[in-house]
């Protein structure tokens, strides 16, 4: 089943900069995809468009079989809440919320009841191996732990696709490796993951790799 389909996606920023020049990309369920590219190659723009945070200038984005181009802000938000999970370079945790409440934030806009949110967040936190840290504040967690809380927040709504933007970029090598291992495990359990990175060694741990350069995907790098 196709989770995400980009067809002829062009993105022009104001001022005429073409960040993406006709991208075609299909992500199937159960895939682990790494999009590799140097800075300025348009990979952040690509991630934003894949995540429906931005709309393409031309081309179509289908998420879970539905064309997102015709969706209103409300429909698009709902689609994000149900089908997507984001992991960013910075974990973006709310300082005044405990680890488990931060994870529960991932369900806040998905229409899940308050009580269920807590229970599901506990499960997700356990999945990333931080059950013992559930009542800790973000300031009491290490960088790797914070990023794992961020990953738990991304997977708590059982998304069709987890989008990760340089999730190891702010971590030291050992911790980064642990986070990548976690992605590997999640993929092994059936999660669909698309990760963006500038680092080929990070991409090497993924099953499918695509290179982006000057706003175009280069085929034939699938290993």
């Amino acid at each position, binding site marked *: 089943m196709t989770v995400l389909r980009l067809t002829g996606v062009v993105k022009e920023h104001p001022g005429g900069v073409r960040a993406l020049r006709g991208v075609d990309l299909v992500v199937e369920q159960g895939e682990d995809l790494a999009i590799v590219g140097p800075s300025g190659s348009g990979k952040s723009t690509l991630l934003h468009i894949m995540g429906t945070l931005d709309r393409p200038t031309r081309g179509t984005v289908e998420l879970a079989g539905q064309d997102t181009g015709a969706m209103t802000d409300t429909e698009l938000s709902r689609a*994000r809440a149900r089908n997507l999970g984001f992991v960013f370079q910075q974990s973006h945790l709310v300082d005044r919320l405990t680890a488990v409440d931060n994870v529960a934030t991932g369900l806040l*806009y998905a229409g899940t009841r308050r009580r269920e949110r807590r229970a599901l967040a506990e499960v997700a936190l356990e999945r990333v191996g931080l059950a013992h840290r559930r009542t800790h504040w973000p300031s009491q967690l290490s960088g790797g732990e914070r990023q794992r809380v961020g990953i738990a927040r991304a997977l708590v709504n059982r998304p069709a696709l987890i989008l990760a933007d340089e999730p190891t970029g702010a971590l030291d090598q050992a911790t980064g490796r642990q986070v990548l291992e976690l992605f590997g495990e999640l993929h092994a359990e059936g999660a669909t993951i698309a990760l963006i990175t500038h680092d080929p060694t990070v991409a090497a741990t993924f099953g499918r790799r695509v290179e982006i350069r000057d706003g175009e995907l280069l085929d034939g790098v699938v290993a």
Partner: protein
Amino acid sequence: MTGHLVDASALGWLGVRSRPGRSAMSALGVALGIATVLLVTGIPASGQADLDRRLSAMGADMLVAQVAALEGSTVAFPEEAAAMARRIGPVTFGSAVANLHSKVMRTPFADPNESAGISVLAATPDLVPAVRGEVATGTFLTEATRGLPAVVLGAAAARWLGLSTFDAAHPVQVFVAGERFTVVGVLAPMPLAPELEQAVFVGDEFARSHFGFDGRPTVVYLRAVESEISAVRDVLPATLAPSTPGLVSVSRPADVLAAKEATHGTFAALFLGLAGVALLVGGIGVANTMVVSVLERRREIGLRRALGARRHDVRLQFLIEAVLLSLLGGAGGTLVGMVGTVGYAALRGWPVVLPWATVAAGLAGAVVIGALAGLYPAVRASRTSPTEALAAV
């Protein structure tokens, strides 16, 4: 939908308590405004309650009638004026005094000009109940003393004569028109009849025999059943002076006092205006804080949009945060205003009147101010593009 609002409120409150110092500072303006509103309504309300209480204690049932003094003539009521007043049905007490236009001094050597301000009145023994007066020390004039050189002092007159601490066991004497009078009593203060506080009273019979007093009173004091007081007031001039009712003026001291105190109320409008300005400034403070907050929290906004928050959710979150911020100020201001009102009333010995309607209006006003102040920042937050928000560092 309710769960939705609960979530949004929880987020708003999270925003308020995440920056406690800043929240407190920006809520301060609203707090000042609300506190001022409460103080300027609560304190006068308590004062009014105290005035009402005092007036009813002092007597709203009292009337004073006097003849308008025509220039160059001494006019007075008929001799039997007090008796005629007492014959009006609802009248319970009635008495009259006559100004003897004389002077009172401690010693015959004192300068007569220094006694100015104290009037010498001829009075009958029934005066005290008719003016709701009380004898502080000694006695008032009696049937036995009304024909003797005895004098009773009003509270202010006693003070001016240096006889406030008059002791009945050691009689003292004062001089009225050169005659020696024994002080037999001092009256307590009478707020409703200050002119009597500044007078000394001699017996009407002694005045007739020694001062050539013709027995015609100048002022009539009476008390009547309170519900009938206006009816009594209407018939009084014709009863007291059948030939010249138009020259008689009747006043109700309680009304005069109430009117005097009411003039203090005009300041309340000024303070309410100031409170309005404080509330406006407070609202601007809240709006300012929220605008800064929205700018600072762009990444949070971006994250929430990525997690599936609609524009509406973001707008609601910031709007509620502004309302809570303002409400926090409103609650603090209400507390200060109530404590201030209670404290001031206690200090003055007033009954405490808390204007609950104003409290409710103040809190509702704080919500409205918060909503207005939060509108622009909230809309701005909701319009923040998620990608720009996430790119912000």
